[in-house]
C-alpha cells in the first residue's frame, strides 16, 4: 500500500508533475487513512464522493502550484458550499451552505481537495472539543486524551497524518493550543490577515482562520494561499501579502527574543518550563539574545477575553432563532416559544452559558462597567506588546500550561477550559500573530509546544525562528505507526 502522503510536499508535487501519481491516488489514500482511524472521531462530515470527483477532474489540469491536488480538512465552522457545515451543533446539524467562505474559495483556487469537515467545540466554544454535539475527537498520541480545542478535530487529523493540511480557527487559542496538545504546527495569523468571510462568527473582533500542518514550511505555504485583503470582510487588512516562506532556513544570529515572566511562572508545569528553557539555551547558543520581560495585563487576559468574547458571542449567535435556517423547534405555538424552544434544545450547555453571561455583560450599565472597560484595558495590553516589539523581534514561551489531559476531566468546571488558554489568549486580545511548534515530549510521551508571538504582519519572521528550531530539534512526530 502506497504512503505518498508521508512524503514531503515537494516530493508529492514532483510525482504529480511527472504523472507518476494522480490526485485520485492521494485522495484514495487519504480516505483509507481516515477510515482506519474512525475512532479518532476527528471528522463530522466526510466529502468522499465529491472529493474523488474533484480529484478526477484534475487529471487534465496543469500542476501549477505546490498545494495542487492535496487533501485538506476544513474546520466545521468554515462554510463550504453544498457541504454540510454544522459548527458541531445540533442547531446546524442539517445546515448545507449555499456559498463558500473566502478561504475555501482560495484553497479551491489552488486545486486543493476538501476531504471533510473537522470536529470541534460547538461554535468553537471550548478548549477540549468535548462540547461538540458529535462527540469528542481524540488525541492520536493517547486516545484517552483530549485533542484540545476548539480546533481539536483539525489537530487530530494532521497529527494522525490523515491529511497533511487542515484549516482551524482561533479566537482565544483554538489553533495553537490543540496544535500544542497534538504536536503539530499551528498558526494564528495577525487579525485581518485572513478573511473571516464565511467563518461562522464566535467573537468577531478576535476570530481568525489559520493553517494547521505537519511542518513549518507547509504551514507558511498554506498561509500564502489563504492570506490577503477581501472586499467582503471590512476587517481584513490591505497590508500586502508577502511570501511567508521567504525567511525559512535563514540563520537566527542576532535575533532579539523576549520571554514574558508570566509565561514562565508557576502556572506552567515544570516539565514544560524545562523544555522551553532548553530551547532558550539553544537559541542563545546560536547567537540570539533572550531576555525576560513583563507585559502589562497579560495576567488579566482571560478575564478580558471572557467579557469581550462572550459579549460578542451573545450577539453573533442571536441569528440562530429557528426562523430562516438551521434547527427550528417543531412544536412551537408562537414566536416567543419558537425562540425559546429552538435555542434551548438547539444549543449545548457551554454555548448557552456563554450566551447568558455575554448578554448579562452587555446589559444596561454592565456594558460600561465591563465591556467598555475591557476594551480599554485591551488597548493598554496592546500598547505594552507594541512597546516590547520596539526592542524585540519575537516573543516566546510555552503554548500551554500542561500537556493534553484525559477526556472527561474537569468537565464540570466551566473555568478550567479558559485557564487552559491563559497563555494563548493575550495574543488574540492584541490582534498579533501567534504560532505553536512542537519542541519535544513529556515523560508520558505527550507533545509539548512552543508559542512564538510576532509583531503585526511579521509572520515570516516567526516562520524563520520556527524552521530553525524544527531543524535543530529534529523531532520524529509521525503518529502513523502508533495508530
Amino acid at each position, binding site marked *: 500500500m502506497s504512503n505518498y502522503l508521508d512524503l514531503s510536499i515537494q516530493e508529492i508535487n514532483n510525482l504529480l508533475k511527472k504523472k507518476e501519481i494522480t490526485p485520485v491516488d492521494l485522495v484514495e489514500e487519504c480516505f483509507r487513512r481516515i477510515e482506519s482511524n474512525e475512532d479518532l472521531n476527528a471528522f463530522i462530515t466526510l466529502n468522499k464522493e465529491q472529493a474523488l470527483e474533484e480529484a478526477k477532474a484534475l487529471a487534465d489540469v496543469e500542476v501549477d502550484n505546490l498545494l495542487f491536488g492535496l487533501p485538506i480538512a476544513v474546520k466545521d465552522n*468554515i*462554510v463550504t458550499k453544498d457541504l454540510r*457545515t454544522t*459548527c458541531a451543533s445540533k442547531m*446546524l446539524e442539517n*445546515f448545507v*451552505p*449555499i*456559498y463558500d*467562505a473566502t478561504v475555501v474559495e482560495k484553497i479551491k483556487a489552488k486545486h486543493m481537495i476538501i476531504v471533510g469537515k473537522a470536529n470541534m467545540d460547538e461554535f468553537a466554544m471550548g478548549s477540549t472539543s468535548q462540547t461538540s454535539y458529535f462527540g469528542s475527537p481524540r488525541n492520536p498520541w493517547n486516545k484517552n486524551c483530549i485533542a484540545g480545542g476548539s480546533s481539536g478535530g483539525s489537530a487530530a487529523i494532521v497529527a494522525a497524518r490523515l491529511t497533511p493540511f487542515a484549516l482551524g480557527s482561533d479566537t482565544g487559542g483554538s489553533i495553537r493550543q490543540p496544535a500544542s496538545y497534538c504536536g503539530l504546527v499551528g498558526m494564528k495569523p495577525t487579525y485581518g490577515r485572513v478573511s*473571516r*468571510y*464565511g*467563518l*461562522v*462568527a464566535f*467573537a*468577531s*473582533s478576535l476570530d481568525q482562520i489559520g493553517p494547521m500542518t505537519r511542518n513549518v514550511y507547509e504551514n507558511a505555504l498554506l498561509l500564502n494561499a489563504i492570506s490577503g485583503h477581501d*472586499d*467582503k*470582510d*471590512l*476587517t481584513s487588512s490591505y497590508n500586502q501579502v508577502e511570501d511567508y516562506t521567504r525567511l525559512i532556513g535563514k540563520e537566527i544570529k542576532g535575533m532579539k527574543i523576549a520571554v514574558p515572566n508570566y509565561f514562565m511562572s508557576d502556572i506552567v508545569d515544570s516539565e514544560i518550563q524545562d523544555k522551553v528553557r532548553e530551547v532558550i539555551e539553544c537559541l542563545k547558543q546560536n547567537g540570539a539574545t533572550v531576555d525576560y520581560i513583563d507585559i502589562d495585563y497579560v495576567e488579566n487576559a482571560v478575564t478580558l477575553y471572557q467579557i469581550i468574547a462572550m*459579549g*460578542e458571542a*451573545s*450577539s453573533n*449567535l*442571536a*441569528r*440562530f*432563532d429557528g*426562523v*430562516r*435556517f*438551521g434547527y427550528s423547534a417543531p412544536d412551537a405555538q408562537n*414566536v416567543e416559544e419558537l*425562540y425559546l424552544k429552538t435555542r434551548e434544545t438547539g444549543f449545548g450547555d457551554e454555548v448557552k452559558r456563554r450566551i447568558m453571561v455575554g*448578554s448579562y455583560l*452587555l*446589559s*444596561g450599565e454592565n*456594558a460600561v462597567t465591563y*465591556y467598555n472597560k475591557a*476594551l480599554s484595558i485591551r488597548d493598554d495590553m496592546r500598547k505594552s506588546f507594541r512597546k516590547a516589539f520596539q526592542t524585540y523581534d519575537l516573543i516566546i514561551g510555552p503554548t500551554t500550561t500542561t500537556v493534553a489531559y484525559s477526556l472527561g476531566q474537569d468537565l464540570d468546571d466551566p473555568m478550567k477550559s479558559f485557564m487552559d488558554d491563559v497563555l494563548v489568549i493575550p495574543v488574540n486580545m492584541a490582534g498579533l500573530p501567534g504560532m505553536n511548534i512542537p519542541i519535544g515530549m513529556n515523560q508520558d510521551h505527550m507533545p509539548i509546544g512552543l508559542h512564538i508571538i510576532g509583531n503585526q504582519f511579521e509572520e515570516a519572521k516567526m516562520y524563520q525562528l520556527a524552521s530553525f528550531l524544527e531543524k535543530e530539534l529534529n523531532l520524529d512526530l509521525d503518529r502513523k505507526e502508533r495508530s
Partner: protein
Amino acid sequence: MEYQTTIGIEVHCELKTNTKMFSSAKNGYGTTANSYVNIIDLGYPGALPIINKGAIELALRAALVLNCEINKKMHFDRKNYFYPDLPKGYQITQARTPIGIHGYVEIDTPNGKKKIGIHDIHIEEDTAKSIHTAESSLLDFNRAGVPLIEIVTEPDMNTKEEAMAYVEKLRELLLYANISDCKIEEGSMRCDVNVSISKTEKLGTRAEIKNIGSISNIGLAIQKEVERQQEIYENGGTIQEETRRFDEKKGKTVLMRVKETGNDYRYFPEPDIPYVVLTEEEIESVKRMIPILPNVRRDFYKAHGMSDINSDKLIQNRPLSDYLLKAKENLDYVIASNLLLGDISAYLNKEHKEIEETMLTIEKFESLVDKLASKEITSKIEKEILVDLLEKPMSVEEALKEHHLTLVNDTKVLEEIVTNIIKQNQESVQDYKNGKDRALKYLMGQIMKETKGTANPVLVNELLIHLLNEE
C-alpha cells in the same frame, strides 16, 4: 394656567441608493417578495457586512442639509433584540457616534421663523417586512438592510401646526437634496411623534405615537393625543410612558404597549465594521453636490417680485425650478415664471417631456423673456413661435423671421396704418373724445389685426394717442 404641549419627532427615511446599506443586494420597492435578498440580508452564518459608500454620502448630505455638526470619525453599533423581521438578531445602527448632531430645521410660524433643533441624525438598516395573515405570518426580506437615516428632533415643537410644518419642511429638504423619496404612504418616510403636556416648566410624561401615515394625520393625532392627556390630568390621573398608534377610523390614538423601564438593547460597537473616517475634502465635495435648497430659491424669487403662488408652484416643480436657476440674474422673473408655469408647462405636460429634453436652451428662454419684457413681442407672438423654439434649434429671431413676425418698428409705416384705421373708425374716435377708454383698446386691436400682431405695440400706442389728439 393652560397646558403647554411639547412635541418631538423621530423620522425614518429610506435613502435613495441602488443597493442596500450593508450588502450589494438591490434596494427597490414593489417587486416580488424576497427577490432583492442575499446572504447578508438574511443574516446567514458567516456572512459579514460591507459598507455602501453611496448611503454614507447621502446621510452626510442629509446631515449637512439639516445644519448638523459632522462626526468625522464614526462607528456603528449593534442594537440587540429578537424579532422575526430582524434577521441577525441585531440591527446595525449608530448609537454613540451619529453622523450628524446639533442641527436645525427652520419653519415658518404665525410668529415668524422658528428653529427646530435636530438632536441627531444617524444611519441604520431597515428590518424585513412582516405580513400577518389569518393563518400565518409572512416575511419579505426585500426591505431588510435598506439604508435608513433616523432624524431625531429636540422637543422643540409646541403645536400641531409646528409639527406638521416641520415634517413638511423636512420632506421638502430631503426631496430637494435627492436624499430620499419621502413617500409616507409607501413607508419610505415614517414619522413617530412624541407628545406630552404640562402646566409647569417640567415636561410631562410623553406618549409616542408610532408610524403616522400622513402629514395631516400627524396634526390630527397630536390634537387627539393632547385631548386624551388633558382629560386624564383633569380627572386626576397620571400618564404612563407608552407607545400608541393613530387609528384613522376611530379618529384617536390607541395603546400599542406600555414601555418597559430601561429597554435593554445591549448596545455595543459593531466589531465587523471598522471606524468610518470622513475627511474634510469628502465633506466639502458632498457639500458642493447639494442642490440649492427651497428656502434659498424662495428668497430669491421673492426678491425678484415673483408671486407666492408662482414661487410655490416652481418649488414643487423641481425640473423647472432647476432650469430657472441657470438664468441670468437681471431677468424679468415674473414673466419668466408665468411663461414656465403657463405655456411651457402646458406644452411639456401635453408632450410628456421634461424641459431639459427640449431645444429651448436657457439662452433662448432668456431672449424670449427679454423680448416680452421690452414689449418687443406680444404674448400672442410668443405663443406662435413657442413650439418651434421648443422643438427646433432655432433662435428667437430666426423663429420670428420664419413666421414673418418681425415687429414693425418703422414709424412711417405705422403712422400710415394708424391714420387709415382712424379714418375708417370715426365713431370710435368720437367715443374716445367723449372719454370712453374702451375705444382706445378697440382701435389698438384693429391696428394689431391689420398688422397681424407685428406692430410694435409700444410705438402704436404712442402714435395712436398722438394722432387722436390731433384729430
